[in-house]
């Protein structure tokens, strides 16, 4: 069974207000030496036993649905084919 992990991140030039909010909270934890926090999504996909073209299909899923290429980029990793 193939398991695919897709990480989706906002492109670096797009402001990430969630990350900014987390960054702003860090001094309250006593952490003062962080310069940037960016928040993304991790998507885990499990294919059927006999699935073919797992990488190709994953790329279609990530490119057309999971990430919006206008604002986001993605990376794929395939675990256990």
């Amino acid at each position, binding site marked *: 069974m193939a398991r695919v992990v897709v990480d989706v991140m*906002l492109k670096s030039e797009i402001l990430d*207000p*969630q990350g900014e909010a987390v960054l702003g909270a860090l001094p309250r934890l006593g952490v003062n030496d962080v310069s940037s926090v960016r928040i993304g999504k991790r998507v885990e996909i499990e294919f059927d036993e006999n699935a073919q073209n797992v990488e190709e299909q994953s790329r279609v899923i990530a490119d057309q649905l999971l990430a919006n290429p206008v604002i986001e980029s993605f990376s794929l990793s395939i675990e256990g084919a």
Partner: protein
Amino acid sequence: MSARIGVVTFPGSLDDRDAARAVRLAGGEPVALWHDDAALAGVDAVFLPGGFSYGDSLRCGAIARFSQVMDTVKAAAAQGMPVLGVCNGFQVLCESHLLPGALVRNAHLRYRNRPARLRVETSRTAWTRLYQPGAEVVFPAKHGEGRYVADEAVLDELEADGRVVFRYLDNPNGSMRDIAGVTNEAGNVVGLMPHPEHAVDELTGPSDDGLGVVASVLAHLTGAADTSGVSR
């Protein structure tokens, strides 16, 4: 015979009734369209209303893009049919690549719910032709993901081609270049975050400035015979 304006209801749409009411008050005939219906029931234009289609799962508008009705709307828009997307409808149009750019979380992370003052930047679209360019209007804005973003080259192109349709006078969400609404190259597809359909009656909204949006498309449709396509 009045023009038939289709109002699409997705699971999670909220403003479809107000959209239909606005169509009726402006003199059109609203026609209810359902998200998994591939037929457009002979409508002359389509209104994609606000709300939270498919729960806004993944990203606002991302799932609605793959609905049956959007396949048909995309094909009709390519043929010049006027299509308006408001709020979640604008997000659906961007996700469907009918309009450039994307709508992301408001810069301040808060849901913004208040009337927005806007400038109508162009009358050269199917949905704004009755406004004077430069006219100021007030439409309610209510969104958490309304910050318009696109890369600088796209923004420059939109500005150069006069495709920024509405601009905020008091930017409520951090949208790039204060952009509240844009149009496609042909001028038949328009999307904006604030809600003209909530501004059709001074009893229930901050103004009746929004009537002009539907009135514009009605004028566009009746005048369509003597202009070649969209008035650009």
